[in-house]
């Protein structure tokens, strides 16, 4: 049974003129079916404007579908009485690290979610302690978020979501504003949570290197899911990815070019080791 399921999901953005009449309608998400297994690491790839962020915001009822249905742990997101339960089950981390930290002290920010859920004080402290430990941020608990690096801020945001004890974390381009070290740091923290805490991870990104360890990859273009499969299946279609404004990691590209030039190696090579052993067998 999937933790998140979507059936014929559609979402329209409306642009209104000054009189409140619909001026323009844009289909941001179109006919999407999803079935995400609990405990898996799923990546959603797509260029800017492909609809992936709009999809992400529907996964915890920040946006409601214009068409079709989405279920989080069997709860229909359009049912208002389940709203807070849904948001607790599917936590969300956003792109801009500065714009999602509410507290002026790290530990207070991590406690913000549980406070809203009405968790008793003692229990909040326990949750905050646990989440900070799981994201490796314990040493910074008394710091001001303004003094942290981008990667650390994102880890605080992740800790804030973890303190709500979600079953699933949706990360909407969490690394887009980070430098390579910050990016690495955040991904490490996320995959730890996936492996050790068995939290379902849905990572939305356009950095191809980040998805090679995912269990499943979806590729979006103009609101639709246009490709899905394991990273290897996806990355073996270099030309098609380029059509969708994406690229592949350099090693995959090199393997592809060599393959095209007649060298006998398979497509969809993901790591340096694979390429080396394919060439030097």
């Amino acid at each position: 049974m999937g933790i998140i399921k979507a059936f014929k999901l559609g979402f329209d953005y409306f642009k209104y003129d000054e009189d409140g009449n619909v001026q323009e309608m844009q289909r941001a998400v179109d006919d999407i079916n999803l079935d995400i297994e609990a405990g898996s690491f799923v990546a959603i790839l797509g260029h800017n404007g492909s609809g992936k962020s709009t999809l992400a915001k529907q996964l915890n009822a920040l946006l409601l579908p214009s068409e079709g249905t989405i279920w989080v742990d069997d709860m229909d997101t359009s049912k208002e009485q389940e709203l807070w339960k849904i948001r607790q089950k599917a936590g969300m981390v956003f792109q801009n690290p500065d714009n999602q930290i509410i507290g002026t002290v790290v530990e207070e920010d991590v406690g913000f979610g549980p406070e809203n859920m009405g968790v008793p004080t003692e229990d909040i402290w326990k949750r905050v302690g646990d989440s900070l430990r799981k994201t490796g941020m314990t040493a910074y608990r008394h710091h001001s978020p303004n003094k942290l690096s981008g990667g650390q801020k994102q880890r605080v945001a992740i800790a804030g979501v973890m303190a709500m004890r979600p079953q699933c974390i949706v990360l909407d381009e969490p690394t887009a504003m980070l430098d390579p070290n910050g990016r690495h740091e955040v991904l490490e923290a996320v995959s730890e949570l996936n492996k050790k805490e068995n939290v379902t991870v849905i990572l939305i990104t356009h950095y191809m290197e980040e998805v090679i360890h995912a269990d499943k990859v979806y590729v979006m273009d103009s609101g639709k899911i246009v490709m899905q499969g394991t990273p290897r299946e996806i990355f073996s279609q270099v030309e098609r990815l380029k059509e969708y404004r994406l690229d592949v990691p350099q090693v995959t590209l090199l393997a592809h070019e060599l393959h095209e030039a007649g060298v006998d190696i398979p497509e969809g090579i993901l790591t340096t080791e694979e390429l080396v052993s394919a060439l030097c067998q």
Partner: protein
Amino acid sequence: MIRDITIGQYYPADSLIHKLDPRTKLLGTLMFIVSVFAFHTFWGYLVATVFLGSVILISKVPVKFIFKGLKAIFVLLLFTIVFNIILTPGEVLWRWGFIKVTKEGLVLAGRMAIRLIYLVIGSSIMTLTTTPNQLTDGLERQLRPLNKIHVPVHEIAMMMSIALRFIPILLEETDKIMKAQIARGADFENGNLIQKAKNMVPLLVPLFISAFRRANDLAMAMEARCYHGGDDRTQMKPLKYAGRDYAAYGILTGYLAIAILFRVVGI
């Protein structure tokens, strides 16, 4: 440059005053201010001075920091003194043209100066020993009764703490925008007032757009973390009075009683 400005003048130290509940400090400051207005004789001011002096000593905040707050009111202080001296009628001590200095004027000016200075020092001690966050918490709790007359106390406190978090971010952003526009030949320094105001447009537009975007993002992030106002909300750090707070209230009450007694007796 602009990022050197610090907001909130909290001075971190480990002192009894720092550890007091913010509500105690808020109410205490209020009681002190009342006392300063109650006292009106030399002996009264001596009591207030001793009280203030001991609090400063206990707070472990260097005196230098405390007097910094006075700089801001220097001009106000000067005006108060000068106007009180020359405008109060009474026994003329000295006259120069139409300006006359009276005995009553001198006394009144001295009294006003002392009140103003003590008022500022008193509240500086509060802000120096309390983090902005604690202050917001304290205010929220202290003003909670206003909820009954539909004042959105929780929301106001939440807005204050968000403002505290974003002020440094927006200051830094202002710095960056200024540099980006200076690199395009913008001039923020020269010209007359109207030109100067006009020159601010390239700074203010991006700043406001960014602030609105941040507000939008933040609202989304808060909703995603189940924020739905102050109802059914628990607190990670609920305010709790400790023994020291009761002791402090005791001392403050005693002190205020002396002030009122002095006033009644006329010392």
